[in-house]
């Protein structure tokens, strides 16, 4: 097939107008030649014989008349073994194999090492009928069984004509030959391509989530759990600990595969992941965290257009691993930067703007993206999931802005970071009152939690939430009327909520023990805290009340810092029990 070509006729920053000599498709990829290098670009609008393309690189030095070649496909990623523990830019170029210290434009590197040999084991048998996404075989990628599947783009039924025996093969070697209904043969390798903006299908159904994904973060797991295959988002002004919280979830999240999309954020934060993750051990597998992690990194100084692509690249890789029956956790920091990239382009195209100059279809774009997450039942009856948590950076910390509002419609969990809590160094600064998890209302999740934790777990959680809410009301009253101006009951209410705040909600992400609380321990601590709250205690005056609870908070914090059920832990537990006993 002849490729369509064209010539540059206009340039405004990274929006380039190309006069084309043949057919072009919306979102088609093309390359512009400038000074010996080829700049990748995507068609975003076509008008007559002019295609408007957004260039993923700097257009400095570009001249009218430059040659353009269209590729005949949309932005694609290559899927295959070796994606894990890789570090890609937003267009899936491998950052580790790039040569210089600087990102030279027009330098594109292969995402998958085609020379590496993989130990292949067949699953499908000759003569078997297969359809897209069926498992043909597997290779070991680290400790994960990486399934080699019938390419997602294959429509209809196929028969396995031949399949390679167990052995070592390279990623681009043919490992199976399939025959379609017309008798045509198709060879399949370990890799396949897929356009990032299209969701990967190949599953039987997408049921409602029925279990939670544990994160070891108490204010999430205990107070507002996220479901496996669920969606959540973390909005918050800068300096409220969004990134620290997201990193904690990435380190501790109960998932087989973690994909982190650093979208338009600080490079040093990504460097932190590069530096830390290989050193950290996944508590569930005993392997290095990096082995289960893929990083898609388009930091804020990298080209803006590729920022938009980066979240789609991340989601596509997530869906690929989901089709293998794995649990994938996808984190994107921050979706606001992606929305801003859309705004910059929309602005250059002189489209009529929506609220805050964002494009009018922002809400639809965000919903469409969140909808790609979820738990699925695969054709072979197994299940896989993509759990998605995005951060949002609202302008001025004001949650009434288009990106936050659009995301609120799409995501089921809302973890609002509060400036007020951050100012008082109460981390994680997730506001216990504004935040919610819709999953806590799902009957199947309630059943799951009550089975997994305790028979009246969800009721206990709601009781703790109620104490927090009443504590806030009491605090406001005390502030208005003064310590002496309110009945003792208000002080009790306030201090009970402080107890829950300090012991359950606050968590030290930088302490080796406190940073990660397993569910058993969360169960124990919530029970203990509620036990203290339920104790009937009498005080002469509010100062007595204050010092009583301060003392308990101090002891229980020491418990949080000690290994669960260790000698030290039990020592503090003894002190605590003594105080509670004495009240009788």
């Amino acid at each position, binding site marked *: 097939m002849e490729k369509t070509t064209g010539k540059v*006729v*206009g*340039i*405004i920053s990274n929006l380039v*107008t190309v006069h084309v000599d043949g057919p072009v498709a919306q979102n088609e990829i093309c390359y512009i030649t400038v000074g010996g290098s080829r700049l990748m670009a995507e068609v975003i609008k076509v008008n007559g014989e002019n295609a408007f393309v957004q260039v993923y690189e*700097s*257009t*400095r*030095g*570009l*001249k009218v008349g430059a040659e353009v070649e269209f590729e005949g496909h949309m932005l694609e990623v290559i899927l295959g073994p070796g994606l894990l523990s890789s570090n890609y830019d937003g267009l899936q170029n491998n*950052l*580790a194999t*790039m040569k*210089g*210290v*600087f*990102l030279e434009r027009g330098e594109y590197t292969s995402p998958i090492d085609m020379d590496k040999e993989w130990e292949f084991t067949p699953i499908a048998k000759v003569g078997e009928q297969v359809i897209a996404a069926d498992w043909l075989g597997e290779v070991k990628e680290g400790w994960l069984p990486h399934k080699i599947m019938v390419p997602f783009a294959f429509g209809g039924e196929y028969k396995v004509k031949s399949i390679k025996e167990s052995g070592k093969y390279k990623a681009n070697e043919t490992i199976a030959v399939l025959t379609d209904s017309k008798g045509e043969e198709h060879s399949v390798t370990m890799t396949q391509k897929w356009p990032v903006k299209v969701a990967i299908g190949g599953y039987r159904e997408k049921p409602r989530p029925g279990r939670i994904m544990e994160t070891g973060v108490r204010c999430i797991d205990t107070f507002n759990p996220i479901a496996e295959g669920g969606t959540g988002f973390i909005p918050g*002004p*800068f*300096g409220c600990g969004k990134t620290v919280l997201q990193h904690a979830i990435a380190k501790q999240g109960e998932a087989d595969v973690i994909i982190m999309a650093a979208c*338009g954020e*600080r*490079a040093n934060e*990504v*460097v*932190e992941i*590069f*530096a830390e993750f290989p050193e950290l051990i996944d508590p569930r597998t005993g392997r290095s965290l990096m082995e289960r992690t893929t990083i898609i*990194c388009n*930091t*804020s*100084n990298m080209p*803006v257009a590729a920022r938009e692509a980066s979240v789609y690249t991340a989601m596509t890789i997530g869906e690929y691993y989901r089709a293998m029956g794995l649990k994938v956790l996808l984190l994107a920091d*921050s979706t606001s930067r992606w929305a*801003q*990239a859309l*705004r*910059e382009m929309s*602005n250059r195209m002189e489209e009529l703007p929506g609220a*805050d*100059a964002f494009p009018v279809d922002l809400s639809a774009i965000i919903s469409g993206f969140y909808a790609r997450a979820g738990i699925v039942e695969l054709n072979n009856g197994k299940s896989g999931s993509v759990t998605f948590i995005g951060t949002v950076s609202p*302008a*001025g910390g*004001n949650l009434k802005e288009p990106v936050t509002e659009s995301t609120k419609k799409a995501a089921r969990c809302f973890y609002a970071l509060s400036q007020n809590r951050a*100012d*008082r*160094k109460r981390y994680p600064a997730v506001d216990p009152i504004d935040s919610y998890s819709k999953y806590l209302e799902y009957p199947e999740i309630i059943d799951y939690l009550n089975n997994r934790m305790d028979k009246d777990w969800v009721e206990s959680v709601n009781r703790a939430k109620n104490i927090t809410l009443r504590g806030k009301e009491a605090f406001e009253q005390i*502030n*208005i009327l*003064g*310590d*002496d*101006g309110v009945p003792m009951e208000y002080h009790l209410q306030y201090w009970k909520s402080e107890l829950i705040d300090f012991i359950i909600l606050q968590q030290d992400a*930088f302490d080796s023990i406190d940073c990660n609380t397993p569910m058993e321990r969360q169960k124990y601590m919530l029970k203990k805290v509620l036990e203290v709250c339920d104790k009937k205690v009498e005080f002469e005056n509010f*100062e007595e009340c204050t010092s009583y609870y*301060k*003392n308990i908070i*101090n002891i229980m*914090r020491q418990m949080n810092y000690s290994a669960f059920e260790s000698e030290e832990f039990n020592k503090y537990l003894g002190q605590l029990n003594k105080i509670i006993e004495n009240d009788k």
Partner: protein
Amino acid sequence: MTSKAFQRIYTKLEAITKATVSLKAQGVSNDELATVAGRLSQVVKIKGDLVTLQVFAGTEGIPTDAEVLFYGEPPALNVSDELAGRFFNAYGEPIDNGPAVEGERRYIGGPSVNPYKRKQPSQLIPTGIAGIDLNNTLVSGQKIPFFADPDQPYNEVMANVALRADVDKIILGGMGLTNDDYLYFKQKFENAGALNKIISFVNTTEQPAVERLLIPDMALTAAEYFAVDKNEKVLVLLTDMTLYADALSIVSNRMDQIPSKDSMPGSLYSDLAKIYEKAVQLPQGGSITIIAVTTLSDGDITHAIPDNTGYITEGQLYLRTDPDTGKVIVDPFRSLSRLKQLVIGKQTREDHAQVMNTGVRLYADAANAKTKLENGFDLSDYDLRCLQYAKEYSNRLLAIDVNIKIDQMLDTAWELFGKYFKPQELNIKQSLVDKYLKGGIE
């Protein structure tokens, strides 16, 4: 800028706006420089053979038959060791009556460092100011602005920090500096005898506002030369980034772009990020640290400029005047150094993290007590102790005139804890309390 043989000359302008001129020209490349009637300009838009040029100094008095000369290259700076000790304008031309700098010609605003090739910042930069070293420790390779109202002494603090920091080069990017401030910096650097390690790029209020858009890229191109080619530790000072952003909005407005929040261009985040993200710790030991100033209007940090800055930089330092002591302090509540965890307790004493947190928490309790007092309520014994503590904490640790070593800061904090609080009120790990707390009230 010297004339070159291959320059193309045009003499017919098609259109003139306040900031741009358009003309028909051939073979022009994007971002290329030109002069229009002798004024430096840059290509910002090409449509067929119609080229739009942004004239940095404005288009006042430019006739339609003005002479336009294209340079065939984007803005550039000659880099070499000769840069040290020199003062330049926004175009990289000497303003200190010295000779032009010989060296390799580098385009400014070049590509960014591959994030995979960066190193994690790990070297503490001590400043002697406890509000910074104790609560918001700086690390080489970091980017951090001062958020300050225009009446606060941010340039003085920044100059002090720069001169006390242990770095090989200090590069000043002055945007919209008043002539007085420019002379202040010049004199301060001369008096410190440090002129040979300082390079300045200065745009004063007397010069056209749009010119200052070149300043950060000029300063950072020089910084990259010393950090990447020479493996040196470079500190870049950018003041005032609010005036830089204002210039961006002027340009975008004159280019008929749809403004987003606070009449800033929609690309403000990317524009600022491109500058700040040049801060880097390189694998060969060189580093670029950026300390900037973002002036606020009436302390409003929700304005688009400080807001976008806050999302890009690794923390921010707020200056404010403490009414109790009358001193300018580094506000412990809103200030933050995101990289401090990388050095706290590693290059400083083990008790640093907990002392820092407790110190600030008790200061917050004092603020609550103050609110109670203002509302006319009785204060508890604890409240009164907090208030006394806050005054001394502010005076001896938060004030910007403090200049002591970090261990002394920690000792001072423990001294205050012991003077005003019971050990169980500190919420500090018992082992640290046992080791460092002297005294403590009953």
